[in-house]
């Protein structure tokens, strides 16, 4: 591949990864607070439809994003109510919502299938976009892409440098201990689940109003599931999760390059391949294998390695908070 091709692959990767970045950061926030929002597949798909419809109706892409965020938060509210207030299985309700809202997006989205609509205007950043390579790669797209950069950094700063971020990590880890320190676990879990859902909604709108520019049936199929996998791959750390999203973007953009290279392989296979590959990645980086490999290492080495690659999920992830 020439350097020009590499640049194109990377630029496409960033563009295609941007919606995913919103989704994985949203899910990371929600899971760090202890709530798995397994509805991602349905939320993203439905909000892609809602965002596009709202933008179409109002003529404003930004109102489209807002509508998508609100609807995403509302779906997350169902998850939160079930998980936090009713203390039911988060997996069950999330899965049902994933299927339900996928179908609902088709059911309600019939009138707006494949019609032209507003998209986010391109906006190369002055000065920055003129930098060699980096300028074209990172700073020559649009506001939504730049917002995703800011979101990644802000989330990281929030998690590790602010008091509220420390509390967020605490309620997903040991909610009882956080409660004893004065944290209102129930309210905070609701809050972060809703924020996570809103970001997933924005992810949906980023598909239909930016990256894919339009809506049709099951347009974002598979992205929600992959977002959930990337959160695990990212070890519940926003930077690593974002890296995972970009890695997926690279796989996708390589798959589209490969279409020219391997004429024999059907396009449809290459379209599915990144999804399969990403999950294979996840499987092979999961801690289980590592533990086994390290079984025979001396205790000290084992501890170091595990600490360095520490990707244990939040201890209270998926568990209801029962004040004892």
């Amino acid at each position, binding site marked *: 591949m020439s350097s020009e091709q590499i640049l194109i692959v990377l630029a496409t990767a960033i563009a295609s990864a941007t919606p995913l970045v919103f989704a994985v950061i949203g899910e990371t926030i929600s899971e760090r607070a202890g709530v798995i929002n397994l509805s991602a597949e349905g939320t993203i798909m439905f909000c892609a439809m809602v965002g596009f419809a709202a933008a179409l109706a109002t003529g404003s892409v930004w109102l489209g994003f807002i509508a998508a965020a609100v609807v995403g938060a509302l779906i997350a509210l169902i998850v939160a109510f079930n998980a936090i207030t009713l203390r039911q299985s988060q997996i069950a309700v999330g899965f049902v919502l994933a299927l339900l809202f996928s179908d609902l997006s088709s059911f309600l989205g019939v009138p707006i299938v494949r019609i032209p609509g507003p998209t986010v205007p391109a906006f190369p950043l002055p000065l920055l976009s003129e930098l060699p390579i980096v300028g074209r790669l990172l700073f020559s797209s649009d506001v939504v892409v730049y917002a995703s950069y800011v979101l990644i950094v802000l989330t990281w700063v929030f998690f590790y440098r602010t*008091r509220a971020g420390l509390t967020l990590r605490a309620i997903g880890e*040991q909610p009882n*201990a*956080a409660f*004893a*320190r004065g944290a209102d676990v129930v309210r905070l879990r609701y809050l972060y689940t809703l924020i996570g859902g809103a970001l997933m909604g924005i992810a949906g709108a980023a598909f239909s109003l930016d990256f894919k520019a339009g809506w049709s049936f099951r347009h974002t199929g598979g992205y929600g599931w992959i977002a959930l996998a990337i959160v695990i791959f990212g070890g519940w750390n926003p930077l690593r999760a974002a890296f995972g999203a970009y890695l997926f973007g690279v796989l996708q953009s390589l798959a589209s390059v490969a279409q020219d290279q391997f004429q024999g392989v059907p396009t449809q296979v290459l379209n599915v391949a990144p999804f399969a590959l990403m999950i294979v990645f996840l499987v092979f980086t999961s801690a289980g294998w590592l533990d086994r490999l390290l079984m025979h290492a001396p*205790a000290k080495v084992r501890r170091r390695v595990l600490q360095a690659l*520490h990707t244990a999920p939040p201890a209270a992830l998926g568990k209801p908070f029962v004040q004892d």
Partner: protein
Amino acid sequence: MDVELRHIHKWFGAVHANDDISLRVRAGTIHGLLGENGAGKSTLAKILSGYITRDSGEIILDGRLVDIRTPTDAIRAGIGMLHQDPLDFPPLTVLENFMLGQAGRRLWLDQRGARRMLASLAERFHFMLNPEAHVSELTVGERQQLEMLRLLALGARVLILDEPTTGISAEQKTLLFAALRQLAEEGKAIIFVSHKLEDIEALCDEVTVLRHGRVVGTVALPCPAEKLVAMMFGKVLAEPSKPHTTQDDIAFELHDAVIRTELFDLHIAHLAVHRGEVIGLAGLEGSGQQAFLAACAGVERLARGTLRINGQDMTHRPYRDYLAAGVCYVPADRLRDGLIPGLTIREHVALRAPRGFFVDRTYTQQLAEAAIRTFNIRGTPESRVEQLSGGNQQRTQLALMPSPLSVLFMEHPTRGLDIESTLWVWQQLIARCQQGTAIVFASSDLDEVLRYSDRVLVFSGGRVSPPLSTTALTVDQLGHMIGGKF
């Protein structure tokens, strides 16, 4: 700060956990709260710290009525509590734990300020804490020190400690007591919750004794121990003394074994347990006793060495072979490891005694009824185990032990049980020994270890002592060994 509680009531379902409790603690004193397990001490402590909400009653601080309903209320009123199981965050660092929940409305974490404050507070009480270490690497005693410093940094003027001497070393206990005396001298009120007489006697100025959720009385210390015992139990109970049950042949043997835990490798050169013998495992919790028991029982693997049961080499054999050889493992956390919440007593009994392919309802019903009768379980065959009380869960675990039984590995046989259940459990265990069962058990209650063991293994700092005969051991010696001196 002076603390006064008036007519506190708390119900848990049908259980009256706190029944009209009133007491006063003066600033500058250490006030003991004494009672056996289940007397209502922890409930009262949690009410005062806002962790649970009282049903009725008044809390008065320095003469002012205060309504404490949440931990935030308590923290704001200057009350801090050290819970029995440290309520902290093992994956986070010491510094992060210290900062978590500190007052103020600032957005940013002030790492530098917190580090300075932690260092100066630690120095005052001669605690050694590395701010960058993860709490998961700390001992129970160090986690307690951290939590205490955190509460002081929050400005606590009343400090409640719930069973703080369980699972800490002798040195840490000395350090803790010195710190508490120092705090009392500074004018803080200390409430020291314990079921251990000697700790109360060594530390407190006054003690309030609770029994069955009620106040029996408050007395100034020193006071004769017999009087406190009588107040605690109402009557003096005779402890069963363990008869000599050790036989000549060896039931369980370890040779040159290495047992791997998350933090260290335990080496055991040689251990031979005789039939009918009781071996107690003493040490701070998390010193490897659990890994030791799990490996000996075949639940986990030995990293190295050989293991024999009744002379038969069992090394690296699957767990079901251990079961077939008459090994039984009874874990400490009954609902997490021992029993299956959601399943009934009948279903538990059926799991343990499968017969044929289809489950015969009448047959399993009879088995369950027999178990309930023999083991005095308060429940029916169709009671789900999570509906039973702690004592009845433990009875169910004992009912699930197979017969005949060669070696029993048991964690905390009587944790959380009232005194009568405790005595009953040991009666059952001793009866097993008389039939030739060898018992290896871990307990953080040194009295229990000394009273019932023939020999003791001390676990400390990633090492295991050679077996020591209990005839020549005292609680003090044991305490020092747990601190690492052997």
